[in-house]
């Protein structure tokens, strides 16, 4: 979006708030479309499973993590245990550690905006803010805050609109639950296409199928998550063992050879 724009504003020290608002708004336009649509899908799914607009609103306000909220619909509807839900969240959202790590410097001195900035660090907001040098330091806090706030307002409004619409859909909604499956297959395919190392993806797929067969549909998740963690730890342990001399960064070069974080929905 900002490919051709030059950082012209770096000389004007303190910009007018209205200009910052406009800048933040324009920046978030691509996310607007995506969040409204995917948010609506979430709201429709919640209603379809018996949870009305208020439940949808609460999820989008407090959880505010797209993929995880889709999983949450299923956890809620199936009456999952607290432990399963917590572990599932830990696994699905583990990538957020990365966003946090790369934003520690940038968000470090943003004062009163900082807590919300950290809370609102979704995949999309991260992608908008991680490389944004287009704003003078004096206004960076407000600007990042507005970008984060706009993004969440799209997500919340989209999902509530979806929840309100669900009751009045002009068609039979049987089968709409597949949207969640389609979302994850899409992300899986995208990751497959962008990443050369397919071992993590295959580990997840095969370990889960095996555990599903062994433990059955209602109790395979926790064994699958444990099994996946063990499978993924094997190459790490092997790489670490191969470089015993390098105490400070065990296995880092061999295993963490990719600098960028994971591509994700």
């Amino acid at each position, binding site marked *: 979006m900002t490919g051709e724009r030059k950082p012209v504003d770096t000389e004007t020290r303190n910009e007018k708030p209205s200009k910052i608002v406009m800048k933040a708004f324009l920046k978030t336009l691509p996310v607007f479309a995506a969040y409204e649509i995917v948010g609506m899908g979430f709201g429709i799914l919640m209603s379809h499973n018996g949870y009305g607009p208020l439940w949808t609103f609460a999820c989008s306000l407090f959880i505010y993590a797209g993929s995880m909220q889709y999983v949450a619909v299923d956890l809620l509807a199936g009456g999952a245990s607290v432990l399963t839900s917590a572990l599932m969240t830990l696994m699905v959202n*583990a990538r957020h550690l990365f966003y946090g790590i790369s934003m520690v410097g940038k968000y470090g001195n943003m004062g009163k905006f900082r807590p919300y900035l950290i809370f609102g660090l979704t995949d999309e907001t991260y992608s908008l803010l991680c490389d944004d040098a287009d704003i003078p330091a004096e206004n960076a806090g407000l600007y990042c805050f507005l970008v984060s706030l706009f993004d969440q307002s799209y997500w919340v409004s989209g999902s509530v609109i979806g929840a309100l619409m669900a009751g009045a859909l002009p068609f039979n909604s049987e089968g709409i639950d597949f949207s969640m499956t389609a979302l994850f297959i899409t992300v899986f395919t995208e990751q497959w296409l962008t990443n050369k190392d397919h071992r993590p993806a295959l580990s997840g797929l095969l370990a889960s199928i095996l555990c599903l067969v062994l433990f059955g549909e209602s109790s395979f998740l926790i064994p699958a998550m444990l099994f996946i963690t063990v499978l993924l730890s094997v190459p790490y342990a092997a790489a670490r063992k191969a470089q015993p001399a390098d105490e400070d960064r*065990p296995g880092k070069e061999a295993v963490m050879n990719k600098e960028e974080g994971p591509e994700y929905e």
Partner: protein
Amino acid sequence: MSNRPHAAILILVIAFVTFLLRFLPFFVFSGKRKIPDYILYLGRVLPYAIMGMLVVYCLRQTSFSDVSLWIPQALAAAVVIGLHVWKRNTILSILGGTVLYMVLVQAVF
């Protein structure tokens, strides 16, 4: 539909763990400590594995006892993959697969 207080607790738990994951790096780094490489490594590779798990999770109730019970899922999944490889458009892939699945379960099978 399960009971509401439990659902509310689950939402809070999910929100709390998500919040924790987002805050942890800032909290840990403020004390000048380093996040262990192993955790960083897991944070990098887990998303790929977890997507595979979520796909299996979504399809966990698929039964193979009758063709009508698994063909719609299989066809729709194939269309999602095909559309995505072809156009790389997330919204199109999701909509295409979902609409096909709805047509299949409502009108065909």
